[in-house]
């Protein structure tokens, strides 16, 4: 019986993810002009950031031990992480905050689906990833391509880096989600969400080796901005080889996932509907 319940639980969760993804894709395709606008915006960001890096490396040779090519690779991972956060996490969190503010959450809570799962994955904008994010990254990939052979990479480092990106993404999602739960107590979470995003990407400008130890300590514990980009790139490029960090990051992910569930239940107990 319990096994049957488990299978049913997995099935309904998979159904929620696929349905929300398909709806998000249809939504993206419906607004063609919006897609072009998004692509233009992302491409401009990429180009201006590359100009910034170019100008900077016109005056300095290394930033925290990273040369221009390595910083371009760092930027690539930063972009991948940002798009992943935006597509898989941020939009759903934004909708959750708004739903508390407007009272729409009532409707979601009465649906016969796991509420936390539904709130987490209610809108996955895969269209933005395919039609805006990927094309906007092409200028960076073109710049990186001839420099690729200069990187000191090995398979263990690459696998570790990929694992750290995935773990880091889960951690920052939980962190952003928990901060956005302030909507349940204050009625609005727009700036709390923006703040959580800024905190999450705080480690996306400087390589891991450039931070003072106390910032590293904060970024690997309470405010987890180090794992998904800074630490991951350090492993990719073979600058870090302490594989204990992988186990630690996994443990941190479990703690943040647990924290997310506990705080969600706590917030729900304090939810006073705006629509009733």
């Amino acid at each position: 019986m319990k096994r049957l319940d488990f299978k049913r639980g997995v099935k309904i969760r998979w159904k929620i993810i696929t349905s929300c993804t398909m709806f998000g894709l249809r939504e993206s395709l419906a607004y063609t002009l919006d897609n072009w606008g998004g692509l233009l915006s992302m491409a401009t960001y990429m180009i201006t950031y590359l100009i910034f890096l170019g100008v900077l490396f016109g005056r300095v040779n290394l930033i925290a031990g990273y040369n221009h090519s390595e910083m371009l690779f760092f930027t690539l991972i930063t972009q991948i992480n940002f798009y992943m956060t935006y597509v898989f996490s941020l939009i759903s969190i934004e909708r959750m905050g708004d739903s508390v503010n407007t009272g729409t959450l009532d409707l979601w809570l009465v649906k016969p689906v796991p509420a936390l799962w539904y709130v987490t994955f209610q809108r996955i904008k895969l269209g933005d990833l395919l039609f805006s994010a990927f094309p906007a990254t092409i200028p960076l990939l073109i710049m990186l391509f001839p420099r690729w052979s200069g990187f000191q990479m090995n398979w263990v480092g690459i696998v570790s880096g990929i694992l750290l990106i995935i773990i880091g993404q889960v951690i920052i999602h939980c962190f952003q989600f928990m901060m956005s739960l302030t909507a349940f107590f204050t009625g609005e979470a727009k700036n709390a969400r923006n703040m959580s995003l800024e905190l999450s990407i705080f480690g996306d400008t400087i390589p891991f080796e450039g931070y003072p130890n106390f910032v590293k300590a904060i970024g690997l514990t309470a405010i987890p901005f180090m794992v998904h980009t800074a630490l991951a790139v350090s492993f990719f490029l073979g600058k870090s080889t302490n594989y204990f960090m992988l186990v630690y990051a996994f443990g941190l992910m479990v703690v943040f996932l647990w924290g997310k569930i506990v705080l969600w239940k706590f917030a729900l107990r304090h939810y006073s509907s705006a629509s009733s």
Partner: protein
Amino acid sequence: MRFATYIKTAALGFCSVANYRTEVWFQVAQRLLILSGIILLWSVIGTAGTGQTYTQLIAYFLVANGVRDLIDAQFGKFGSSMVDDIKAGKISAYLLQPTRTVIFMYFKHLGTRGVTIVFYLIYIVVGIVLAPPTSLIACLLFFVVVATGLVICLAQCTMVGCLAFWITDAKATKNVVNHFTRVLSGSLIPLTFFPVAYQVPVMLSPFASYAYLPATLLQAEKVDSFLFLQVGVSICWAIGLLLISRLIWRKGVRQYEAVGL
């Protein structure tokens, strides 16, 4: 009477935001975080290429970011609020009022920024304390440039916002302008870092008035002819862009009337 209406509108905007006090603090903390990120980045890069001491560099970024945010040039949120009002049709009600619509909308938006404006003034004051200005003329020119920066930003936001009359949602265009502003204003990287061939065009662009020029003026020991030229160009940009934005606004409103009313 009309000006009193604008002040009341700003007060109303302030009250609507002040209801969510926690949110205001989150916004302040967010800006503080962005600034600390820039300072941290420059502490890693070092000051060797800038010809400044570390204190001067921090003062530069405090003033540059303070002025940029004070005049709303970081995100150009007035442009967003204008796009939203046009898109949602709220502008119909504003057009019927016996006020100047753009100024009315600007004051409404200004009120929502009340608390954060105080915070940006603190940025500038701390910057001045860290590296006190030495030239009185430069200080006076600083106020002129902040005023021209404000007008340029208002004109830029109006032009971007007016695009909503034609393409309904102009937020992507606003973001494109913001990305250029971020790098070309000098709030992320001093414009002196640019290659020599590009320095003059970048310093004479309207974006320089948002951050680089005010911050440089406060740190200038004497005002040379090039600084005077930059201030003069900034005034020209302000007047020119304001006129263009008025033209676009009028054309946009005519377009809106033809379709909406």
